[in-house]
């Protein structure tokens, strides 16, 4: 008998305008000791499903549940709150996405680990805590037990979370995107650890992820959700290599992969095609290069950025030199703390370097600040921010946001301004009625299009794009990347594309730079970096990169 069985589970959110269905008649099952990956994009209902199983959702949102969740034969949906509490922790363990948010910041690791044990069993509990910490790779147990969560790195925190979830030997572990907030190299370690620990303890696992590459590594079975409905469930290899549903195929096709060039455009998921049937991906045709590339290169010469005073200083960027030719698509890849964002902010003159010079045409950015007219510089260099949610003023309409640089940098007013805004909205592929909408009324992809429209409004010749797609779903990522590729064809535009996603940047950039601990350790063409990496760190990045098994039918890519 299956350990966990969902039988036509529907979850509806109670709102003032009636129920909104988040999960629709979901049926699946999981045998003891097996791992089921639930894969889907944002809004697919994967997290709702996970939280419904352990019944935590009712604490954060007013929901109505129908159908059954049978765990070991017992229907969890019918249990009283008291009896349900007996299941949580003891039989159902949970690992959350943000380990730092899930650990109590005011308690040491020791207390949090032994917390659920009765007082007279504390000694046993502590022995167990030590054993588990060793098992999750924190061998320095005495020190770790005495740490507070903020004193640990993200990877250590997630290891502690895993140990915490295992303290009571649950039969089922629910992990909600446990590695999404981590760097790829850390992610690879945690996934390997997770897999090992799970097998050693014989724990069944529901693993929620948006990343097909992660699912490929940990799953026995994969379930694909789309808009609250199960579109496909099957063994891992079957789903990955011979997906039966067009949505699954489309999702797989959208994931950037090493060695697959996307310089001629990314496939994207078309909802219209999906409703009709077989093939759900489409690839747009990019226009040929219209503009002859000329103009000045961006030259970064020996630039460093040091935070803090001497003694306790941090070298965020260390003696970086690079050159970006006019019209070039330069990818800068690195993990968190590598200094890539700081470098991007210095190039867009939001920070001044501690030493070194950045020159772009007539503009110079030096430790003394920006030399010359800031207005001229801003016209030439623009920035696209990572999170479109926070880079758009929530109280301004899309039109007002896009008009801002036109007013401030070009001095457009009146009807001229309005018509330019309308043109820009059309150019980034947004419907005309977007103009009057507030950011909250737009989807993530639409918001990022608005911020791209704002960036190109002043017709810059260089755009620094700081992780512009990392907050987006893969299918939307494809659309935004296509827009950037399209703009580069139709305008004279160099791109400095900052990202942590190695597969993505290697598939589109002309040249790629790898940053590690503030230093630019390697620069080269994508193929050279992929096939013949020179630096040890680049090799580690490549090894940790989550990859999909190759699809046997390349025809699916619809090219």
């Amino acid at each position: 008998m299956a350990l966990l069985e969902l039988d036509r589970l529907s979850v509806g959110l109670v709102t003032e305008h009636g129920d909104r269905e988040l999960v629709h008649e979901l049926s699946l099952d999981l045998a003891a000791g097996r791992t089921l990956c639930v894969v889907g994009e944002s809004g697919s209902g994967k997290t709702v499903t996970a939280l419904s199983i352990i019944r935590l959702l009712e604490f954060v949102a007013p929901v109505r549940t129908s159908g059954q969740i049978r765990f070991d034969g017992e229907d969890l949906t019918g249990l009283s709150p008291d009896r349900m509490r007996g299941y949580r922790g003891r039989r159902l363990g949970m690992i959350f996405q943000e380990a730092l948010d899930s650990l109590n910041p005011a308690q040491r690791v020791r207390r949090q680990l032994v917390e659920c044990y009765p007082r007279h069993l504390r000694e046993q509990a502590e022995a167990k805590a030590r054993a588990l910490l060793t098992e999750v790779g924190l061998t320095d147990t005495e020190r770790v037990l005495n740490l507070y969560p903020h004193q640990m790195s993200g990877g250590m925190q997630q290891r502690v979370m895993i140990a915490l979830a295992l303290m009571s030997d649950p039969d089922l572990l629910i992990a909600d995107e446990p590695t999404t907030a981590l760097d790829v190299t850390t992610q690879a370690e945690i996934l390997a650890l997770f897999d090992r620990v799970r097998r050693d303890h014989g724990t069944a696992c529901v693993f929620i992820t948006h990343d097909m590459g992660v699912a490929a590594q940990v799953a026995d079975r994969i379930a694909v959700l789309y808009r609250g409905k199960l579109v496909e469930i099957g063994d891992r290899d079957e789903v990955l290599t011979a997906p039966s549903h067009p949505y699954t195929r489309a999702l797989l096709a959208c994931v950037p992969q090493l060695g697959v060039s996307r310089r001629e455009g990314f496939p994207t998921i078309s909802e219209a095609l999906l409703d009709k049937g077989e093939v759900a991906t489409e690839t747009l045709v990019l226009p040929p290069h219209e503009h002859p590339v000329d103009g000045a290169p961006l030259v970064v010469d020996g630039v460093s950025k040091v935070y803090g005073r001497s003694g306790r200083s941090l070298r965020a960027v260390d003696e970086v030199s690079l050159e970006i030719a006019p019209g070039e698509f330069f990818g800068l890849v690195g993990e968190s703390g590598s200094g890539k964002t700081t470098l991007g902010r210095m190039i867009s003159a939001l920070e001044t370097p501690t030493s070194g010079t950045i020159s772009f045409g007539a503009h110079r950015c030096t430790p003394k600040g920006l030399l010359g007219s800031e207005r001229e510089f801003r016209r030439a260099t623009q920035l696209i921010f990572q999170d479109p949610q926070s880079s758009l003023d929530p109280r301004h309409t899309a039109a007002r946001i896009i008009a801002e640089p036109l007013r401030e940098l070009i001095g457009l007013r009146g009807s001229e301004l309005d018509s330019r805004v309308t043109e820009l909205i059309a150019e980034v592929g947004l419907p005309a009625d977007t103009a009057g909408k507030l950011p909250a009324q737009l989807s993530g992809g639409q918001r990022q299009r608005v911020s791209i429209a704002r960036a190109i409004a002043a017709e810059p010749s260089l755009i620094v794009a700081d992780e512009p797609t990392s907050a987006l779903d893969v299918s939307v990522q494809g659309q935004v990347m296509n827009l950037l590729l399209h703009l580069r064809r139709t305008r004279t535009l160099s791109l400095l594309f900052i990202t942590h996603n190695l597969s993505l940047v290697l598939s589109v950039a002309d040249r790629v730079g790898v940053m590690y601990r503030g230093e630019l350790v390697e620069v080269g063409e994508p193929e050279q970096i992929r096939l013949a990496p020179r630096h040890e760190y680049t090799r580690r990045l490549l090894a940790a990169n989550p990859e999909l098994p190759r699809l046997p039918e390349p025809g699916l890519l619809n090219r």
Partner: protein
Amino acid sequence: MRRNRTLVLAAGALGLIVLIVLVLPVFLPSVSATDPVHRLLPPSAAHLLGTDSYGRDVASRLVSGGRASLGLSALITVCAAATGLVIGLVSGFFRAADAVLMRVMDAWMSFPAIILAMALAISLGASLWTELIALTVIFTPFTARVIRSRVLAVASRAYIGAARVSGMGRWKTLLVHVFPNVLPLALVQVVVLAAAAMLVDGAMSFLGLGIAPPTPTWGNMIAEGRSYLVTAPWLVVVPGVTIMLCVFLLNLVGSALRQAVDPRARTLHELQRLRTRTT
């Protein structure tokens, strides 16, 4: 829905009180007409809330005292909110100004509020204007701090950086991007401030440091009535309950507004509601 009902009811009741205070004095007996024969009368049909030690009609004095008490509280609120808003905006957004302004505010707040107000009132002489100045001075730092912390949060959002990339100047950014995003909180703050101002204003005129008798205020009515607490309790109870009612209503409006403005408070509120429903 329930949230909005509270807001509407409490705001409506407050509006009614203001209306009564503005309109009713026209129809009531004179405030200052003394009548020693009918002193300390309990509430009756002729004198709805009784008379005081000089035989003056308490209802008339209550309503007309409301003009002074409510009016002055409102004035104090507006002044303190405006200065606090400006100081909070500037010190939250400009780091150099922040160091100076916030140290001044810290020093300011380290004085016990009512004693500072008394000292100011005594040195400048008790009058409407000194009370206004004294209480504005007291309440400004509180508002400034609340606004500043919000400004700091807004200033760290990426759209402030985006405005800079779009070539917008600092002051304009403050006005166009920061101020509108701080405004909802400022409105909540105004209501909370009004409640506090009412209480401190009552205390000031109770101590004889506000508007001087014979002009009635709720505070000095309590002060005058306290000698007759046993024989004529209505002299203290009537203005006391009125102050309480106003402050209570203001607090209700304040928390309802906060829930409307602050999504976190709203979520908390809804969850509480949900918990009570499920258990």
